[in-house]
């Protein structure tokens, strides 16, 4: 019988059915970080349990770690305590820990693929909703709560119901200046922020075939913003190429055997989906959000919605969003003044994100009064950028070039908005207060749109600001 990748991976990892009807699912790789793991280790101690597969558990610090001050002890005593707690837990339970001293620290969803831990056909869990990022490699990856972190630590399994499967095709060709971020913001806008609840998303079609691994990660990353806990792309030669030679990738004969297995993982052509949705690349424009959910978005040349003209059911939400955002209904989103530009996060903090922007940013400068920060997703990303001189381009343009971490995506470290500052952000959430100030405002967009906003001081069309027309990647 024809099977989807999802079914193949699920079946290979299903341990048994529990009395509740949940599946006990084996987790092949467990990624942990400083914020959602300490309570789980505390529960292990209370129950007198060990980590079942410490060699399949990997830790790093990302959420709280400062991106300017990089030496312990950190000035924030709470942050310092949490990072020390993670080190203590990893030492006590024998878990590999990528700390700053290792040179491999970074956002957990950047580090996993970079280290080759993320592989096709694996199951991955992490106490972070953006774990779906790893699906870009044909892995089935779940964001989990802390009690489930405990479950996976103690048993390397968790209890979960099998979701339905929706195939999302994006065919055609994206116009120049349209990026993976625009694709996922478009999908969320069309299907809604809860449209994916109960589903895993399989992304495919010509656009995904053409995407590099980092672009696939950007889309899979934001699956949860559309309600889907899992999002993935079938693995192909690009996947294998990306993984070859990475620290945790198989080596020698084992590599060849692994690739052979991985080739058989992709969904069979005639497999059945619970739902199929088709989009055209040509319909997708540079996307920006105007509201307080990632689904409240428009193209850069569209206007901010008027609550009087939306469906009754959405009206209150639109009013609440516009009140928070201090935006005027019916007016263009383009030209909205910004205070802060943030380039980074597990959505758009990878090498090609910085490369793409650097190609256009050279010789330009951040507008007066705008605070612009560039935060590599990992120390590895930062190091390559520095070797290529990309950091210098950013610095000369007036960006602060920082150490690796989640930074202003969720503002658990000192990188926060102040008051009602408005931030052009390459991150994934524009929730009220998300970037550290309860009245702070976020507009989500692609990295190049963030750069365009930074240099003009207002929400802008990057195609106009930078004359985007031809691919401008610096080849590594």
């Amino acid at each position, binding site marked *: 019988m024809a099977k989807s990748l999802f079914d193949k991976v699920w079946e290979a990892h299903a341990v048994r059915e*529990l*009395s509740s009807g949940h599946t006990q699912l084996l987790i*092949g790789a467990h990624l942990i970080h400083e914020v959602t793991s300490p309570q789980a280790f505390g529960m292990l101690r209370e129950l007198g349990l060990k980590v079942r597969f410490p060699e399949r558990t990997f830790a790093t610090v990302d959420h709280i770690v400062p991106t300017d001050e990089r030496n312990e002890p950190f000035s924030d005593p709470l942050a310092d305590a949490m990072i020390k707690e993670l080190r203590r837990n990893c030492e006590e339970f024998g878990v590999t820990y990528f700390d700053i001293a290792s040179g491999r620290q970074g956002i957990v969803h950047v580090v996993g693929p970079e280290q080759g831990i993320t592989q096709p056909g694996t199951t991955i869990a992490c106490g972070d909703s953006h774990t779906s990022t790893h699906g870009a490699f044909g892995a089935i990856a779940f964001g*989990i709560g802390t009690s*489930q972190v405990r479950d996976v630590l103690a048993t390397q399994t968790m209890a979960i119901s099998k979701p339905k499967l929706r195939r999302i095709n994006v065919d055609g060709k994206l116009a120049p200046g349209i990026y993976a971020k625009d694709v996922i913001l478009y999908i969320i806008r069309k299907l809604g922020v*809860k449209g994916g*609840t109960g589903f895993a998303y399989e992304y495919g079609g010509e656009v995904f075939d053409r995407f590099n691994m980092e672009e696939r990660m950007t889309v899979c990353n934001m699956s949860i913003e559309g309600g889907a806990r899992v999002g993935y792309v079938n693995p192909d030669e690009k996947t294998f190429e990306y993984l070859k030679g990475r620290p945790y990738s198989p080596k020698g004969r084992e590599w060849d*055997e692994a690739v052979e297995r991985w080739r058989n993982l992709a969904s069979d052509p005639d497999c059945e989906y619970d739902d199929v949705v088709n989009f055209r690349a040509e319909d997708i424009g540079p996307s920006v959000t105007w509201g307080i959910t990632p689904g409240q978005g428009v193209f850069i040349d569209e206007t901010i919605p008027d609550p009087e003209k939306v469906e009754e059911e959405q009206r209150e*939400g639109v009013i609440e969003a516009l009140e928070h955002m201090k935006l005027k209904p019916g007016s263009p989103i383009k030209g909205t003044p910004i205070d802060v530009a943030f380039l980074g996060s597990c959505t758009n903090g990878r090498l090609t994100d910085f490369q793409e922007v650097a190609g256009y940013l050279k010789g330009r400068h951040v507008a007066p009064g705008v605070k612009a920060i560039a935060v590599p997703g990992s120390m590895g990303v930062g190091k390559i950028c520095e070797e290529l001189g990309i950091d210098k381009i950013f610095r000369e343009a007036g960006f602060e070039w920082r150490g690796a971490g989640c930074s202003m995506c969720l503002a658990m470290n000192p990188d926060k908005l102040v008051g009602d500052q408005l931030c052009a952000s390459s991150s994934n959430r524009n929730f*009220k207060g998300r970037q550290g100030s309860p009245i702070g405002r976020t507009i989500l967009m692609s990295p190049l749109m963030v750069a365009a906003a930074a240099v003009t001081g207002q929400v802008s069309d990057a195609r106009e600001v930078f004359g985007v027309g031809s691919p401008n990647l610096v080849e590594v």
Partner: protein
Amino acid sequence: MALEKISKVTGRGVYIPGDDIDTDRIIPARFMKCITFDGLGEFAFYDVRKNEDGSDKKHPLNDPRHAGATILLSGSNFGCGSSREHAPQALHKAGFRGIVAESYAEIFFGNSITLGMPCFAASRQDIREMAATIEADPEVQIELDVENRSIRCGEREYPAELRDSARTALLSGKWDPIAELLEGEEEGEATARSLHYVR
């Protein structure tokens, strides 16, 4: 590790209107700088409840008529966003024992059930009617019936949805799955051995 069998949750309710209430709103990230969940209760919905100087804003949770409510009512896609268990933990520690909303984000739903906090889904219209009943009489008793998947609010009864797996887990006292997962250790070991990349 015998857990309580949860067949009914009874108490007074409070309605927090709005759709897509995310877990950042339920517990802002800065309060997650902690290594235990203790003390999270007082920070539930902090930024929508408090002004910068710590004084109260107008919010249902600050309304003394609803003090001591144990059942929270809200809109659709409740608990979306971050997977932080800190969100249901904060609600639980603030005294809530059950939630009624139009729909839930998946991770929040699972995290809540694992704490033994039932999340019932009801229609928009029914929730608004229950909210009106609470508004008219904050003392009205609400009962979430897990067995029958129904909600009693004062004199009226409303149908509710609750996934089979969650219902079974609550009724059988297996809402925290750790004991059962540990029992499956040998089978888990066998599955792990069958996977090239694990062993």
